[in-house]
């Protein structure tokens, strides 16, 4: 397996008023292609910051971030946006669907940035909605869907442009156990059957059990050495 993500001595500082707060202190991390990695840690530990840096939503203060063969810490805003569109699928805790669009339209949004025709976009949307089991809810708006269904739409949106890396920020944090389990199984299937590389931030040890590797973040550092577990 090849390395898809590598972080070298990554430091992230935020300016809060006059105070500079260091959130990550020299993080080194390597993630292989096809891995399902979960990042665990208490609130404020820096795991979401780490995820944002890997997904190209934020830039490190120091250090290198290599993802899919690109030094993304060197990319400017516009280039980084285009890079995200090509390589990253993002799943949010609170789904973050556009409330005025139907499920199908929400899923279609990332494809607007591609050169696909309208018919091709519709075809891809239909395929990915079938993959997440929501083909029959295509014309429903988010307010007409349950939390679990909305998260499936969110996953479909993250998958539709066939990204290199699926980044999930507490994808089950807003769901009941039953729905959470379904979402985790879906992610696991995507990882195992389609070879999707997934990084998931979670508080939930049961959720982390679905990953192939779990890392712990505490006070801005990776505290445990990577331990492979049978997923």
């Amino acid at each position, binding site marked *: 397996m090849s390395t898809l993500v590598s972080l070298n001595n990554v430091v992230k500082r935020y300016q809060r008023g006059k105070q500079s707060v260091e959130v990550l202190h020299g993080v080194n991390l390597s993630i292989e292609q096809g891995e399902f990695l979960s990042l665990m840690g208490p609130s404020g530990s820096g795991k979401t910051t780490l995820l944002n840096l890997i997904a190209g939503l*934020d830039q490190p203060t120091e250090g290198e971030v290599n993802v899919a063969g690109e030094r993304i810490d060197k990319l400017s805003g*516009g280039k980084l*946006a285009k*890079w995200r569109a090509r390589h990253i699928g993002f799943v*949010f805790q609170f789904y*973050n669907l*556009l409330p*005025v669009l139907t499920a199908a339209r929400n899923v279609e949004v*990332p494809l607007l940035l591609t050169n696909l025709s309208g018919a091709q976009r519709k075809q891809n949307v239909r395929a990915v909605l079938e993959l997440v089991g929501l083909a029959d809810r295509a014309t429903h708006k988010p307010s007409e869907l349950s939390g679990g269904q909305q998260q499936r739409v969110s996953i479909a949106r993250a998958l539709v442009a066939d990204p290199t890396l699926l980044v999930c920020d507490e994808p089950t944090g807003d769901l009941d156990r039953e729905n959470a389990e379904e979402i985790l199984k879906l992610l696991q299937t995507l990882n195992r059957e389609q070879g999707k590389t997934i990084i998931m931030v979670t508080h939930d040890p049961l959720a982390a059990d679905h990953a192939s590797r779990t890392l712990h973040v505490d006070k801005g550092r990776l505290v445990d050495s990577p331990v492979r577990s049978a997923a």
Partner: protein
Amino acid sequence: MKYLMLIWAGLWRKKTRTILTMLSIVVAFLLFGLLQGINQGIKAGLGDTGNNRLWTTARMSAVSSMPASLMDRMQSIKGVRTITHLSFFGGYFQDAKNPLPAFATNVDKLAIVYPELNITPAQIAAMKSTRPGALIGRPLAKKYGWKVGDKIPVGTTIWTNIDGNNNWAFDVVGIFDPTPQFEKSPLGSAFWINYDYWDEARKFDNHRVHQFIVQIEDPKQAPVISAQIDKLSENSPDETRTQTENAALTSQLKQLADINFIANSIVGAVMFTLLFLTANTMMQSVRERIPELAVLKTLGFTGGTISVLVLIESLMLCLFAAALGLVLSAGAIKIVGSVLGPATLLPIVVITGLLIAVGLAIISGLPPALRAQRLNIVDALAGR
């Protein structure tokens, strides 16, 4: 085009607010179209036709009289083609509440100077053969149901006749059909009587007229001829003031009110208010959608693309509503025009309106568009 669904969805995110904002813009542009239509209509109504006609009145006041003999001297000026004159008879029909636009004139010359009145040779002949004759514009005849052969009693509070009373009577000898442009003008719906008959029959101010209308060969010579006419009576008790018909009408309108200034002031105030209203709507709309815009950025939309989407949304809102307002104003102008007189929605007004709408959209859409462009994804997603 593929982004239309995003723009459309953003526009209708809060339907009530969008509809109310649109209505405000529609009303503003309806007002703009209507006022500018009336304004342009008046300007167009004045047209270029009056530039070869000069109006000579007494310098002291337009209602003061001048010696009729001045006409012969004016006729000798080079470049003068024909001269007619008119005197205000005024008067009323049956009751002082029904004033008449009655003027005494030399009808044969009037027909030459004002071809727009479409006075026929037969009507001129009828006036010549009937001294107390009256030639009436179709609109006035329609109003009172008069026809050729009727004897019209006309009262006046000014002109006492040689019999010592104020009761006059005129025989309708003809009804003329002015051009549409002249239909609503005082001359087009006037009650014309023979000057010679009236001058002999009135008790005072004889051999004097209130206005000369001088038809000239070349409109470019108007300033020179005007000066020459006024020079004829310089330093006399009957000094005159001569100007082109257009200038005189514009001046009269300005005495009534500066329509242009009023129209521009009202439209300016409305547009200024509208700018704040639309800007506020767009700002609020973008503020509410910050997390959604952050999601779009996360998905790979660049700041530039998002700011363009916001600007297009603002353009669609303003242009659609402005176009609707202008269409409605075209309908309103037809109704107002039938009551007030000349009014028309010229293409220049429509183009100006749409350009204003574009300006409004850009000015009101730019601040939220820039805000959307500069959005920090991490902060926006965290609700900071």
